[in-house]
């Protein structure tokens, strides 16, 4: 799992990163977490955001769009939350969940870096 640890560490080196998790959306369980602070429990965030991903996947299916999620951006008052499902074969059913501080992060850069991390992540 060295690859996973490196990926999580790289995600935490994104400017303004608060926490990151690799989550299995078939169960809502985390495969790995990094960062986070006393106030946010990343396993709770993972379980909750699993429902977000599932709802969107179901919607896409119901609309017969025949497409997939590249990423989901959730904007809070003080944070951005980025959800990026893994696109390679080994990462099927998984997504990366990144929390960044709105004031310290560059959203475009964070999104770009998260994509690079996701593409290089082989499990």
């Amino acid at each position, binding site marked *: 799992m060295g690859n996973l640890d490196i990926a999580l560490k790289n995600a935490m080196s994104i400017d303004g990163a608060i926490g990151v998790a690799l989550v299995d959306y*078939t*169960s*809502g*369980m*985390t495969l790995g977490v990094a960062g986070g602070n006393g106030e946010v429990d990343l*396993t*709770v965030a*993972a*379980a*909750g955001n*699993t*429902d977000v991903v*599932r709802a969107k996947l179901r919607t896409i299916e119901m609309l017969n769009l025949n497409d997939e999620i590249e990423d989901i951006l959730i904007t809070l008052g003080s944070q951005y939350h980025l959800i990026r499902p893994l696109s390679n074969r080994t990462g099927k059913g998984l997504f990366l969940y990144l929390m960044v501080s709105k004031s310290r992060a560059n959203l475009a850069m964070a999104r770009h870096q998260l994509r690079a991390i996701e593409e290089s992540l082989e499990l």
Partner: protein
Amino acid sequence: MSRVDDLPRRTPAQAGALPPPRALPPSLAGNPTLPYPAIGQELAALRLQIPGVHGCVLGGVDGLLVTHNLQNGVDPHDLAALAATMFGLGRQVGYRLDQGDFQQSTVRNANGYLSVYAISPQALLAVVGTDSINVARLHLHAPTTAARLADLLDGVTPTGS
């Protein structure tokens, strides 16, 4: 001398040499003093909170049903017995590996889940769910439900036998 003579002989046990029979607490099942409406509310809340939960069973560690809110035709008595079986295995693992008391056990099959949570040394909570259930959320919510159920069962006066 035959080999049979080398074997240790079984001798009848001396009176008083046997350990005293284990004193088991009275079963929770069939106890009319349990706060059934409050328990039912907790079980219903858990089912509402997590989509995909078919129902919950509150059973004793003796395998007897206390109450349930299953609606899909599964026999709750069977599930209470299965939950106690899973508890028994978990408890034995806990003993052998010195890992302490049983907390939780989950079985995942092709089309669903059965999770069993310890409520108290006497009671178990079994939850049946579909395959698509968010197990992580179940594992987050069920222990708090179990803790509240433990409080509800705490003040109950045990009935005889």
